[in-house]
């Protein structure tokens, strides 16, 4: 019975992927992508990858989806012009052939994987006790492969700088996003008052539970950022000007704390990002605590986009 459902899910995902590729309108393709992300979440749940499922739902489907929709809305004005200069048949066939070749090569690689696939999972489980965290994913992300996570956090800050760099000179340092009309009695304002307390509890819970169960700072920060965006969309609070020093400091605080703890490890435990014996869990929690506000701010500001309104100095 469950096989039938799995097959149905796989067929649905393939069909939706094809539909998204062939969708004519950019917003329709973006919505297709969001639904695709939600279906992938179900696939990860079926594969028992609950951490990946949470991330896919929060970041793959939700956050990226919103980014794509706002990009599609911005592109609406140029869409007719873009369609007018249709590439020639030869170009399009070439693009199709290239895409098909990449997909084919990937498929071949996946099929050619040795059975059972090479894995470090037993070693992780054998050594997880050293880190004192219960969730193997967190142990990998913040102990065994902490360098990757550090670089990931820094890359996110760089991505935000990239978004900001699209701002024209006259609004540099100003507030991102359009001014939202505030309707204090509107239903959006109502939801923006009722939902954030629940969302803040849920986001903090997902962050905190990440040490021992599926969850973690990325998923929690996405929920917190969503609550922040909701309050700003309702016009109850305005986006901060990006020239504020607290914004700048909060953006670098997480990676800086991460690097500082890494250097402490280099002095006391003999390697960058190594944790001294017995201090692994407190240090991992400290890193997660430090990264959480930075991630919330980066994700929220990234969705708001480049500054649009100049701020009088």
């Amino acid at each position, binding site marked *: 019975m469950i096989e039938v459902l799995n097959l149905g899910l796989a067929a649905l995902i393939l069909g939706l992927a094809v539909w998204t590729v062939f969708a004519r309108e950019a917003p329709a393709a973006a919505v297709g992508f969001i639904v695709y992300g939600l279906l992938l979440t179900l696939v990860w749940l079926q594969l028992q990858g609950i951490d990946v499922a949470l991330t896919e739902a929060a970041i793959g489907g939700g956050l990226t989806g919103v980014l794509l929709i706002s990009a599609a809305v911005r592109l609406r004005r140029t869409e007719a012009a873009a369609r007018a200069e249709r590439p020639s048949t030869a170009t399009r066939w070439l693009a199709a052939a290239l895409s098909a070749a990449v997909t084919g090569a990937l498929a071949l690689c996946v099929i050619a994987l040795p059975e059972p696939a090479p894995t470090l999972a037993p070693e992780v489980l054998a050594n997880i006790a050293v880190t004192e965290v219960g969730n193997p994913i967190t142990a990998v992300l913040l102990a065994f492969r902490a360098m990757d996570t550090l670089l990931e956090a820094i890359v996110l800050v760089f991505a935000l700088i990239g978004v900001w760099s699209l701002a024209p000179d006259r609004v540099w340092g100003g507030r991102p996003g359009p001014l939202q009309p505030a309707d204090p009695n509107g239903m959006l304002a109502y*939801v923006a008052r009722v939902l954030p307390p629940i969302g803040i509890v849920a986001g903090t819970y997902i962050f905190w539970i990440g040490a021992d169960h599926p969850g973690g700072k990325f998923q929690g920060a996405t929920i917190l950022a969503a609550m922040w965006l909701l309050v700003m969309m309702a016009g109850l609070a305005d986006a901060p000007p990006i020239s504020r020093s607290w914004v700048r400091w909060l953006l670098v605080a997480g990676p800086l704390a991460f690097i500082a703890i890494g250097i402490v490890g280099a002095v006391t435990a003999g390697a960058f990002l190594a944790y001294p014996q017995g201090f692994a869990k407190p240090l991992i929690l400290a890193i997660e605590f430090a990264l959480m506000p930075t991630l919330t701010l980066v994700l929220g500001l990234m969705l708001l986009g480049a500054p649009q309104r100049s701020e009088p100095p």
Partner: protein
Amino acid sequence: MNLFLDLWTVVAVVAGAFFFFAGTVGLLRFPDSLTRLHALTKADTLGLGLVVLGLLPQMDSVSAGLKLMCIWLLLLLSGATAAQWIARTLRQGNPGP
């Protein structure tokens, strides 16, 4: 007693699935955006409520059941708001984002 609870689960979840099905049919068949929105949100909210009520006896603990109820309440809030918002944008004749 257990048989009765299992029977309740089957009946309620099937009824919930029926409402989801009806909502989807409405989404595909109704002529304009407002009626489609109506079919979708109303039927899906009721459908999920029935599924949650059906699954309640199958939960291991009271807290798991409470979490299920919370999910339904959150859907009530977000579904109703999103539907109202889309409908208002439609009425103002502004295709909007």
